[in-house]
């Protein structure tokens, strides 16, 4: 039994294994470094960064639900400049590829942050979060309107030569339309899925459990939704997909890969067990070895459906 080949590529980004962490669940890199050897990850994906510093939502920002959680952190962050100054140096001592998740409230902000972050040599790829309301156009979501969506992808594409990975919003009737549009507009990869818009209410106070009223549902609860979206998108695009949504075991990750994902991300499960991503990587490797599967490519998209 030889060691399976776990290497994958997203555009020019090379990952030694297909497992990264989901943006927003792993901080900016240093936070989990005591628990996890970052160099064992396929890539580190950091919390969403906007062109300018941002304060985010009031608390409560998260709430636990059945096999999942809600979050409405509200994308606080140090802004592009702050991120570069504060965190890029940290990554100099690691080999692991760095994926920076970016977002904006206007097209210009998307362009600015893509340009600033894309200019950093240490950055391996940009992951573009399109689940944001467009403040200029009355709050319509970039991620659920194909025209706005294309404008973001094109803007970011124009501002950087780094691989760009478009992180799709799950709450659409037809994910295929967005997947195809992203590919046509120059995306190097897709990330599926973001947390799902949801809500919980405290029945005694009658207040929403989150200060932002609604938030995103993540964790094992949404895994079957994510697997379906990955499977659907994989049928219509050739660019690689990072699958995520409730992954907490090697078997979960393999399910996404069989559905069509090239890579996977561990999100909410980091909170319960910081070693999940490493455990998932090791588990994929031994599972493949036991079955004489030589490479991830042999596994990818092999669902008999």
């Amino acid at each position, binding site marked *: 039994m030889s060691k399976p080949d776990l290497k994958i590529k997203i555009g020019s980004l090379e990952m030694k294994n297909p497992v990264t962490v989901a943006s*927003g*669940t*792993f*901080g900016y890199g240093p*936070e*989990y470094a*005591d*628990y996890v050897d970052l160099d064992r990850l396929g890539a580190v994906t950091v*919390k969403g960064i906007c062109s300018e510093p941002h*304060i*985010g939502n009031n*608390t*409560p*920002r*998260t*709430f*636990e639900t*059945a*096999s*999942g*959680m809600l*979050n409405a*952190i509200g994308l*606080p962050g140090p802004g592009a400049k702050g991120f570069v100054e504060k965190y890029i140096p940290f990554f100099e001592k690691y080999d692991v590829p760095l994926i920076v998740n970016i977002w904006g409230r206007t097209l210009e902000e998307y362009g600015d942050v893509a340009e600033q972050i894309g200019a950093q040599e240490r950055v391996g790829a940009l992951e573009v979060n399109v689940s944001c309301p467009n403040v200029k156009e009355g709050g319509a979501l970039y991620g659920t309107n194909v025209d706005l969506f294309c404008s973001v992808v094109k803007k970011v594409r124009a501002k950087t030569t780094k691989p760009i990975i478009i992180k799709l919003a799950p709450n659409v009737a037809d994910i295929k339309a967005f997947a195809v549009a992203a590919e046509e507009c120059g995306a190097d990869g897709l990330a599926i899925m973001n947390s799902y818009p949801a809500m919980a209410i405290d029945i005694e106070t009658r207040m929403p459990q989150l200060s932002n009223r609604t938030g995103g549902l993540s*964790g*094992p609860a949404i895994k079957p939704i994510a697997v379906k979206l990955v499977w659907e998108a994989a049928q219509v695009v050739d660019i690689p997909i990072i699958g995520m949504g409730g992954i907490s075991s090697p078997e979960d990750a393999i399910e996404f890969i069989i559905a069509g994902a090239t890579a996977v991300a561990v999100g*909410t*499960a*980091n*909170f*319960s*067990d*910081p*070693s999940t991503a490493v455990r998932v990587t090791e588990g994929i490797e031994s599972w493949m070895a036991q079955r004489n599967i030589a490479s991830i490519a042999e596994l990818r998209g092999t669902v008999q459906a």
Partner: protein
Amino acid sequence: MIQEKTVVIQHDLFQGQYRLLRVAAPKIGPNVQPGQFIHLKIPRMEHAVLRRPFSVFKADDEGLSILYATIGKGTAALNSVQPGEELDLLGPLGNGFPTLGKDKTIPVLVAGGYGNAALYLQAAGLPAQGVAFFGGRTAEDILCVDEFKALGWDVRVATDDGSMGTKGLVTAALDPWLEEQKEQFQALEIFACGPNAMLRAIGDRALEKQITAWLSMDRNMACGVGACLTCVIKRKTETGWEWARCCKDGPVFNAKEILWDE
């Protein structure tokens, strides 16, 4: 910070709704500072994606213990854990209490409910003993009085229903005593842990009377290590305020740093 698979040594009813849980934790135990906490994965609760944070009540080279109240789904599930079972902990987490700022300072402890779980190691480690104020709803919520007394502390109690000590909030016991100390507020240093409203009341008094006060804050947490930005607290800055993470930048904050919401 360490992730350790610990083993439950002891798990008993302590008093009222409170239980004492001791684990063998040779990696985390020796590294605990007073006021730090651990983040605990509740066994057999697969539908729960989050850990639960608990202050370290006692710690030594072999292990540590927590003293907890059963208040919801997670702590209820924790009740069924048996000696011999494995418990996955992250810890020690956060910044604990500092030691006394100056010589000759009189330390003052203020605790509400399980709050004094966070204060015991501090009470045991300080170079001097002072006065400890414990508040609770009823006598059942007043924990470890004898243990603190044994450490040399002057313990004063207040309960909402008057079943033990002064009737009223913990401030009903604290305020008259503070009044007596009027001449030497600068000689006092407060270490407090308890419900938010209590901490705020203590913080207000500290600011007003210019007493140094350290508050151990309690916020819902997801990651517990500073990564998710769930547990944030408004911390004053020169120009206004910023978010500080209770888990990583706290849980202990200087009262004068905290910007309380209106």
